[in-house]
């Protein structure tokens, strides 16, 4: 094991896959010359050449569209969108082309595409640079959706995403960029569709994603001090979703709290709630609870941003309300 940051994990995964497979190519705004807006592709242009590593103009629809056309004709592209919010500019190619092409064309092709983007709040970047959009993409058949929380997960899941023969949206959480943790040395990958139980427990299941995993773990510490044993599950990929692990945990703990950065109404949280009532209704000793961002955009003011992001204290309260 070695200790690296979340962004270093991205870099290593990209680099190893580009070394392994000459069909892997990467492009985005400032990817080549500047080594990436978030410095995740440093020196890539030198190592792999500007044929395989490219700076694109600022035009997100073509950034994704290039990947669709290239994947149809034999490459394994990685497209960088910088901020997830910029999916707005790329949405036609994402929703009407990339997600649907294999299906519409009766399975004639595969589309081994990875689209990477930084999502999430906590950096005072305001409404247009803080969104979490995974609920949308879970509701768009044809895409896999990956939401890693730790450096080790980032590396293992990004390698699997690149190798996957389907389009994958890979969300890197901005507030976690500088987190450092142990990552296995040498070749390894983590399959898509396998949740990780980040903490074992018996009294309540907390399902949390990305930044919220850390807040859930903090909450679990506090709860432990109060004699409540919380199990924290990080789904790691939302499509495919490891329904078994989640359902089994709920059957064991008989209580569920879901915490995510999606806005509450029609957020990804609901999928876990619906799963619980669909597959474990009779096991539930209390109503499942969802925590998320209230239905407003993010403001730039730290006071306002912090106020609407779920905090560990709220997770603790939610758990205690259903374990009375």
């Amino acid at each position: 094991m070695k200790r690296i940051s979340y962004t270093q994990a991205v870099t290593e995964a990209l680099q190893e896959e580009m070394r392994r497979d000459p069909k892997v190519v990467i492009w985005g705004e400032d990817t080549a010359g500047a080594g990436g807006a978030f410095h995740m592709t440093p020196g890539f242009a030198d190592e792999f050449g500007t044929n395989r590593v490219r700076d694109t103009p600022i035009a997100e629809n073509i950034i994704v569209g290039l990947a669709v056309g290239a994947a149809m004709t034999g490459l394994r592209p990685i497209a960088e969108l910088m901020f997830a919010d910029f999916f707005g500019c790329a949405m036609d190619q994402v929703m009407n082309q990339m997600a649907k092409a294999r299906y519409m064309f009766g399975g004639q092709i595969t589309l081994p595409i990875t689209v990477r983007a930084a999502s999430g709040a906590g950096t005072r970047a305001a409404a247009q640079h803080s969104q979490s959009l995974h609920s949308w993409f879970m509701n768009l058949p044809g895409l896999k959706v990956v939401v890693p929380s730790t450096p080790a997960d980032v590396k293992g899941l990004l390698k699997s995403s690149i190798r996957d023969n389907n389009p994958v949206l890979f969300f890197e959480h901005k507030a976690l960029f500088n987190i450092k943790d142990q990552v296995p040395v040498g070749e390894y990958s983590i399959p898509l569709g396998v949740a990780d139980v980040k903490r074992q427990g018996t009294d309540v299941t907390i399902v949390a994603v990305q930044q919220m995993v850390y807040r859930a773990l903090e909450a679990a510490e506090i709860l432990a001090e109060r004699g409540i044993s919380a199990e924290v599950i990080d789904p790691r990929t939302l499509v495919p979703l490891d329904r078994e692990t989640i359902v089994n945990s709920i059957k064991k703990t008989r209580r569920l709290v879901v915490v995510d950065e999606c806005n509450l109404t029609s957020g990804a949280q609901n999928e876990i709630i619906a799963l619980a009532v669909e597959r474990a209704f009779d096991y539930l000793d209390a109503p499942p609870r969802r925590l998320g961002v209230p239905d407003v955009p993010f403001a730039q003011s730290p006071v306002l941003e912090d106020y609407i992001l779920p905090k560990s204290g709220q997770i603790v309260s939610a758990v205690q309300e259903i374990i009375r």
Partner: protein
Amino acid sequence: MNAQPTVQEVTPDIRKDIQIALLHTMLRVRKFEEKAQELFLNNKIPGFAHVSIGQEAVAAGVCLSLSEGDYITSTHRGHGHCIAKGMEFPRMFAELMGKRTGYCRGKGGSMHVADFSRGVLGANGIVGGGIPIATGAALSAQIQKNDSVVACFFGDGAMAQGAFHESLNVAALWKLPVIYVCENNLYGEWTHYTRQHSIPDLSQRALAYGIPGQRVDGMDALAIYRAATQAIARARGGEGPTLLECVTFRYFGHYIGDPHPGRTDHEIENAKLRDPIDHLRQALLASGALTDRELALFELGLGNEIADAVAFAEQSDDPEPESAFEDLFV
């Protein structure tokens, strides 16, 4: 557009067999689409379908300039491109009818027909949706250095989409091997292109990207063949993209069954006087390059081929309902 009919000379710079192939291809497209219209109006084709009758010269002229390893992207009005690039009638009809023997197993229909084995990267139901994809395929050819060229078809209407601009800028910047073929049939749905674009000569948009732009008579298969051959050679030679605006006309409405009330009879009849098939046929017959008998035999064969293809499609089964769950993820 000049509405005066003139008998064309056989053009010496294009080989006779190619001229005949152009005629044959246009006839194949025309007959296919006439049959598709009939089938649609008899409720044999579900959903939407759009025919390109009148515009066949563009599909034929461009696709016959391409090599086998080359690619095209097409549009909602894409039957002609598909057929000219070599797709076969039986599975085309089957796809239009939503049958399991169709190219896309009944999932695509007219607006999403594709044959990747022949380099047809798909029709597209999104106006402008294929332009970035074509550009990506050209980037792929450049990266893989495999000598392929992409022909990207789109309508006059599509040129207003942001996707057009983003694509041409990148293709020109990187000198990608792609040719952009605007089929200007004067209308996007029912609105004249001059009420959708701020300049009357759309080929001039090439100036914004520093690439050649050329306005071509879209009713003249030879002119298109000539322009496309040159543009493709340029693309294959690493000199980058070209924008061809082929000025043409669709004889029928926007979709099959649409009367397109906004056009005058005069406008339509005028265009028909310049019918791309009639003209090339007359020229080839007049010059002796083709005999009446050869043509009659070809048309007979074509008729039979269509009849067989329709029979194949009609006799094909619908997809298994459960196949709805196939073909999404690998």
